[in-house]
């Protein structure tokens, strides 16, 4: 059943690509409600398959690596949707530490804390110290800049960054860019990058070879998912125009506490689960507030994202795993795709 669906998705995506994705500006939006999907960008041809098969046969070559994205830890949150967010963060870290292929680093896409309190940041730091990957890259969420315009965030997690905390780095041939779209938000608007950051981004990407795989990461999605709830970034189009010429672009976001994916030309967008609490699907609740699920189901809706880069295919594969999932199997609630 699940395999059938994955095969169908494979065929669909292959079909889109044959159809000349770029020129037609084809836009395909998909959301997977569950788990267990490898996302591979191979030379601009998107291919997806259940991750029990396929992944791993090329692993281990020089230059191959993986990293893990975690998001929305909301340390300090203690409401019914999850009274112990420190414990679920710890479960996420345990899951990372138990991976058979060790990630080179971790990216945290923001909302480290609930209220930007020093004690919350302290608790997060303490938990992350136990991660097998020692290098951790951060971008802030709106919850991390609540009381002091992000000064404390910058002091702790943004040393050496520009502006409100943006920066870039290279790792084994892949160029990573951390962007901040939660600062200086305007009444009535969504996320915002702002002129200064956009200018910096244009300069940062200029002169890089179009064959360099690019990974953009930021807290609020850099694509418009649901404007009524502010799930998008007002000036993301401008940012995305700078990456159009690159052959492989992966955009990783958090904020919405659920997995959503979209492919647009050679750009694949992906949002991660939270380690703290789930939020409702767009428009399926009166607001985007924390969603309470039965306690025994909580770990199915929290999770981590494992991203693999395979040199031979010049590709990035994205695998989401809920905290409650003990193995890398495509079973469970791999509910297939739903258009969005």
């Amino acid at each position, binding site marked *: 059943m699940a395999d059938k669906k994955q095969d169908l998705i494979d065929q669909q995506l292959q079909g889109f690509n044959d159809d000349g994705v770029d020129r037609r500006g084809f836009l395909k939006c998909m959301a997977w409600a569950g788990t267990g999907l490898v996302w591979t960008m191979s030379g601009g041809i998107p291919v997806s398959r259940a991750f029990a098969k396929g992944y791993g046969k090329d692993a281990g070559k020089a230059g191959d690596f993986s990293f893990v994205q975690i998001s929305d830890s909301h340390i300090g*949150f203690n*409401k*019914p*949707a999850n009274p112990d967010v420190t414990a679920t963060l710890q479960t996420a870290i345990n899951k990372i530490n138990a991976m058979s292929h060790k990630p080179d680093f971790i990216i945290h896409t923001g909302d480290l804390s*609930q*209220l*930007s309190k020093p004690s919350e940041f302290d608790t997060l730091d303490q938990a992350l110290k136990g991660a097998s990957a020692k290098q951790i890259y951060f971008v802030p969420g*709106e*919850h991390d800049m*609540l*009381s002091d315009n992000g000064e404390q965030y910058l002091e702790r997690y943004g040393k050496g960054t520009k502006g409100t905390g943006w920066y870039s780095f290279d790792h084994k041939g892949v160029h990573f860019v951390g962007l901040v779209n939660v600062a200086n*938000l*305007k*009444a*009535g*608007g*969504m996320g915002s990058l702002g002129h200064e950051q956009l200018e910096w981004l244009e300069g940062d990407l200029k002169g890089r070879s179009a064959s360099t795989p690019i990974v953009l990461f930021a807290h609020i999605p850099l694509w418009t998912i649901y*404007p*009524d*709830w*502010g799930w998008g970034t007002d000036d993301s189009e401008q940012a995305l125009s700078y990456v159009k010429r690159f052959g492989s672009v992966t955009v990783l976001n958090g904020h919405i506490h659920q997995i959503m994916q979209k492919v647009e030309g050679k750009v694949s967008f992906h949002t991660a689960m939270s380690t703290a609490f789930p939020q409702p699907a767009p428009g399926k609740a*009166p*607001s*985007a*507030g*924390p969603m309470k699920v039965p306690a025994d189901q909580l770990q199915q809706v929290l999770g981590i994202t494992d991203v693999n880069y395979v040199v031979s295919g010049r590709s990035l594969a994205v695998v989401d795993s809920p905290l409650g999932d003990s193995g890398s199997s495509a079973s469970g609630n791999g509910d297939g795709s739903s258009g969005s």
Partner: protein
Amino acid sequence: MTRKNVWVAGLAMPVMIALLLLAGSPSVTAADQPAAANTEVKIDNFSFGPQTVTVPVGATVTWTNRDDIPHTVVSTDGVFKSKVRDTDETFSFTFTKAGTYPYFCSVHPKMTGKVVVQ
């Protein structure tokens, strides 16, 4: 100017007002106002309700956050700005000049509201 920007938490407000009344402080307008002039705005489900409130000059508006998520109350024109308000925390502001005061939540800027002072 008698503009007052008071931080109150829960039950502290009536006590504070009573103390100020007893003290007969000239800077406080509460004594001159009917109780109805003081208006409540609830923050619920990522929205301000009512979204527009109309009050007389000198009225105090109090916002209460009833969400599980922190919010702020920030004047678009820089007239007032709350600290972050977690669940059940409040913010009050006394409006001493007629006018229209648009505001929003700086954490979730889709949340907007308006105070009209007549």
